[in-house]
Every structure is written in structure tokens, then in C-alpha cells.
């Protein structure tokens, strides 16, 4: 090795330090939650690191709520919503990306307008619709209003548009029907976008609370966040240790999945090149 090798760049050191500081600031609430969850209720804010750690909060939270059932419901719900979104947005995205029809652009703008409609204020109307459809207290009832997602249609349309038209033509010459083209060419080509969108969708609906609460009755259909809500206490103020434990329990499956698949997820985002 030559002794003249360039010294590590000062820029790079600053980069690393900056990135790390920001990362720690960003993750600190979660670290704090972990700390608080391991402390007895009365002392969590003390930041006294000599305190012994305790799992009593987790035990208490675990026993208080049928987590397994809620977890199952959440998984079913999230899967259902995602499946519905993927199907509907794929079809619509495909139509907007590759078909010429009168009024297409107008309709597409309408679709984008949906992004601006605030679902929170439409709860009463949507409740009535779900109820009329007979879907009350079902996973489908919770999921249906989210299935036609303007965001998803937009993303997939962009993804489909960036697929080289030759791929479609090659498939058509090889004998594919329109559906065949969609299924065999566009969908695989947009895989990174699907993954990226799935991550966003799962994170959103995993954490959705109010709507599922309103259109369900029983623990048989309710998601994890309803369990979490039992530890929120507007009349008395929450117990930080307990709510931290409950929070961790709610997001733990998601967090673990994310940490395991983070490389793939990030890669998927990277390749998606959403613009």
C-alpha cells in the first residue's frame, strides 16, 4: 500500500456523524418506549438506569386483551385490503396506462381527486353504505372503502407506463390476450412497485383504528389497534409503561417483519424508482 493513500474524507466523516445523529433522534421515541415498557409504572420517566427491568407491563397487557385473536384479525384484514387494492388498482392502473378511451383523462383526474377527500369526515355516510351492503362487522366491510385506492392506481399507472411497449408487443405476438399481457408482462415488471405499495398499505392499515372500531362489534373482527385503545384513558391519563408495552405489542409483528425484510423492501423501493 502506498503511504500516500488519501486520508478519509472529512466530508465522509461529517456525513456519517450527521446520519447517525439523525438516526438516533428518529429512533429515540421507540427506544424510549422500549425503556418505559420495561419499567414499573411509577418510575418510567425517571430515566434512572439503575432500576431493574421488569416484564410485568407486558404480562399485564398480554393478559388484558385477546391479542392472538386481534392479531389474526389484523392479518386477515390487512391481507384482504391489500389483495383487493392490488386487484382493483392493477386493473384500473392498466386501463389508464395502456388503453385509449374517451374521457380517460377526465376520469383519471377524478380518481386523483379522491386523494383529497378526507375519509375521516365521511364516516357516517360510509357507515350507512357498509351497513346497507350487509357487510357490517366483517373484514370485508372494514376493507371495502380502502380497496379502490387512488394512490395505488396512480403508482401502478406510472409503473405500467414505464414498461417498454416492446415487451407487450412481444407477448402479443407470442399469442397473449390482453389479460395475458397484463398478467405475464406488466405485473411481473411492476413487481418492485407492488412491493413498495404493499409496504405502505400494510403499514397504514395495520395502524388504522377509528374506522374498524366503528364498523365492527365483536373481538372476532376487531384489529390490534382496538386492543391498544383499551390502554388509552382519556378520563384519567394513560400509564406510560403500559401503553408503551401495548404499543410494542401492536407493532412488534410489523416491526419484526420489516427488520427481517428491510433489505428487500428498501431494494424494492429503490428499484421502483417512483417519481
Amino acid at each position, binding site marked *: 500500500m502506498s503511504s500516500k493513500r488519501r486520508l478519509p474524507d472529512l466530508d465522509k466523516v461529517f456525513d456519517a456523524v450527521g446520519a447517525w445523529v439523525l438516526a438516533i433522534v428518529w429512533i429515540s421515541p421507540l427506544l424510549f418506549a422500549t425503556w418505559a415498557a420495561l419499567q414499573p409504572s411509577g418510575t418510567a420517566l425517571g430515566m434512572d438506569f439503575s432500576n431493574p427491568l421488569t416484564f410485568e407491563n407486558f404480562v399485564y397487557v398480554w393478559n388484558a386483551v385477546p391479542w392472538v385473536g386481534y392479531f389474526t384479525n389484523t392479518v386477515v384484514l390487512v391481507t384482504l385490503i391489500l389483495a383487493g387494492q392490488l386487484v382493483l388498482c392493477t386493473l384500473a392502473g392498466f386501463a389508464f396506462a395502456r388503453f385509449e378511451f374517451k374521457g380517460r383523462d377526465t376520469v383519471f383526474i377524478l380518481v386523483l381527486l379522491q386523494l383529497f377527500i378526507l375519509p375521516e369526515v365521511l364516516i357516517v355516510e360510509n*357507515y350507512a353504505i357498509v351497513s346497507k351492503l350487509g357487510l357490517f362487522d366483517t373484514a370485508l366491510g372494514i376493507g371495502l372503502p380502502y380497496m379502490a385506492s387512488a394512490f395505488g392506481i396512480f403508482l401502478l399507472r406510472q409503473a405500467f407506463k414505464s414498461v417498454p411497449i416492446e415487451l407487450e408487443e412481444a407477448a402479443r405476438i407470442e399469442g397473449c390476450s390482453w389479460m395475458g399481457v397484463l398478467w405475464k408482462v406488466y405485473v411481473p415488471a411492476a413487481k418492485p412497485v407492488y412491493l413498495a405499495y404493499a409496504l405502505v398499505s400494510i403499514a397504514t392499515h395495520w395502524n388504522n383504528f377509528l374506522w374498524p372500531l366503528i364498523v365492527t362489534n365483536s373481538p372476532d373482527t376487531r384489529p390490534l389497534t382496538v386492543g391498544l385503545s383499551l390502554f388509552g384513558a382519556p378520563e384519567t391519563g394513560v400509564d406510560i409503561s403500559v401503553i408503551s408495552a401495548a404499543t410494542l405489542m401492536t407493532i412488534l409483528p410489523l416491526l419484526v417483519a420489516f427488520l427481517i425484510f428491510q433489505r428487500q423492501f428498501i431494494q424494492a423501493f429503490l428499484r421502483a424508482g417512483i417519481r
Partner: protein
Amino acid sequence: ATELTMYYPVAVGGPLTDVIDGMIDGFESEHPDVKVNAIYAGNYDDTRLRAVSAIKSGDPAQLSVMFSIDVYDLIEQDLIVPFDDVVKTAEDKEWLNGFYPALMANGKVDDKTWGIPFQRSTIVMYYNKDMFREAGLDPESPPQTWEELVADGKALAKDGKWGLMVPSTGYPYWMFQCFAVQNGKELMSNDGTETYFDDPAVVEALEFWRGLATDEKIMPEGTIEWGTLRQAFVQGQTAMMWHSTGNLSAVKREAKFDFGVAMLPKHKQSGSPTGGGNFYLFKNSTDAQKEASLELIKYMTAPDRAAEWSIATGYVGVTPEAYETDALKSYAADFPQALVARDQLEVAIPEFSTYDTARVRDGLNNAIQAALTGEKTPKEALEGAQAEANRLLRAFH
């Protein structure tokens, strides 16, 4: 069989749905012909939203636990029926009179009973006996008047600790009712059509509250967060706090020190508002359902259940009989703090509630917060709120 749908909120932390489910099971085994769907619906706001959504879309719901103070709005929206229409027998009428009058006050409008108390609280003063001792005060004689409160507070406020904290987010109007009534004036008329925010006694009460921070320096300035106050108390940040009796169980569990519970101090008189949730009956149900609903409410407010509920949550037992049950008696023997709320019911007043209550209340809340944060003087703030309330209530005279 009669089927009933009931919504209920959980407003204090913990697995209380299990307790309710247990009660429902008990009721169903006593009344095999009635089937009850008891549905947890989040907090009070969520529950109200849920009930409104359901009824507006024609879904059947027969009863619900909701804020006691929502009564005027529920009447206005034509959602509920008075119990007087359902209560037929003398025995039932007797039952209506069995509750603490202070708890019934909120449910009575135009001489009719619209709500039956279920999960009711009141405001009490929690204090840290250890800190009292350290400050050289008698831990067994908490302050009983405003003057004592200030004096003790001054003795306690040192080393970055505070003498007293009265929360002013979340439910500022509720806390303010304490000061006002202690200063001799209630905030609204009994028929919910008039408010007295700009009454000199009321203004003086708010001045006193603000003075605790600015003049006496026994309380921090600005608003004090409702949700984290208990944590501040159990970690010794303040020697005294005013808070809902709903906190009792939690403070008991969390506090690592000897703590006491006392009635609020008096000034011109003593007093404290009640709070919490009542049972309401919805319209559009059959007579059989109404009947069954009444049975259910009777069952859930019966002394044994009231005692059980009180022990589990810290809410007050809704009838004197509840305090006569063995369960509550033995609980109180070990934990005499639990009886303070009941004793205070003697002097309790109804929680603030008027027509168009949320708007009127918001005006008051903003006025209180504006005064506490120094944006306005108490007089200015309250006069503004009164003007606003007058405008809103004009239609209901």
C-alpha cells in the same frame, strides 16, 4: 327472545371490557329471554360517533353509555327517550329515586329523567403524605380552605417541586367548576339555557386559579396536561393534584409513597362537580326492548355490580346501597381513600352541561386556557365566552 344492542366506552385504562362482559353474562343467565350485544366503542367521543352513525343508518341500538353532559344534544337530535316513559311500576319509580341525587342531576331535563348514572366520577384532591411530612406539615390534615391550600402549597413548592397541580387541558371546564362553586357560583342554570361566566364570583374564581401560578407560585404556569399529570404526581413532581376519582386505582398501584385523598378545599362553600357516563335509551325500539333495556340497566346499577365496578375502576358507587355491600365495605376498610368521593357527593353539583353543550363548553375551555396562559385577563376571557354562550343559547330560551 328480545335482542339488545348496547354501546359503552372505556375511559379509564385497563381491561374493563372483561368486567362488562361478566356483568352481561350474569344478566343473560338471569334473563334467558334477553340477548345482549355489549359493544365496546372506544372512548366517549368514539361511542357518540358510533351511536350516531348507527342510528342515522337505521341500525338498531337500544341503549348506550355516553357522556352525562351530552343529554341536551341527544334530546335535541331526537335520539333518546326519557326513562319516565318506560318506568311504569311504583317499584321502578322507587328505583329511580335510589341513586345519589348529585349523580341524577345531569340526567334530569325538564323534569324528566333521561340518563341513569353508571360510570361516574368526581374531582378529589390527591396528596403526597411523604412530601407533607418533609415540609413539616401534618399528613393527616390536608388543606381544607383556599387559604390553607395556598399556605401549604407555598410550604411544599421548593427544589423544583410544585405544591399543587390542577390540570387544564382535556376538561378545563370541569376543574373550573370546582373553583367556581367553591367561590359560591355555579356556571349554568339547571335547565341548560343560561350560563354565568361573567359573574364576578366566577371571574374571581378564575383569577384565583391563575393566581396560584402567577402570584402564589405554587403551580406551574401555562396549562397543565391532563394526561400526564398522574405520572407527575406519582413521580413526586407535585405534592397535590386535583384529578378525577377514576385515577384512584392507578395511583394506588403506581405511587411508591404514602398518599392521601381529600375533599376539595372550600372557600365560600365546598363543592365539586360530578362527571362521567350515564345510560341512555334510544328511540325506535319496541316496548319489549325498552323493558328489557330497563331490566339491564337495573341489573348493572344494582348494589353488587355498582360495588364491583367501583372497585375495578375507581368510579363512585352510584347508590348508597352500593357502599353497604360487603365487597365495597371491606375494600374501603383497607383503603379508606375510596370513600372520599362518596362523602363529597353531599356537596357535589352536576357537570357543566347546556344546550349546544360542546360549543358552549369549548368557548369556556378556550377562555380558561387563554386566562391561564396569560393571553387574556380572566375577566376579558370569561366575558367573551359568556357573549358567545348567549349567542348560542338564545335559540333555546
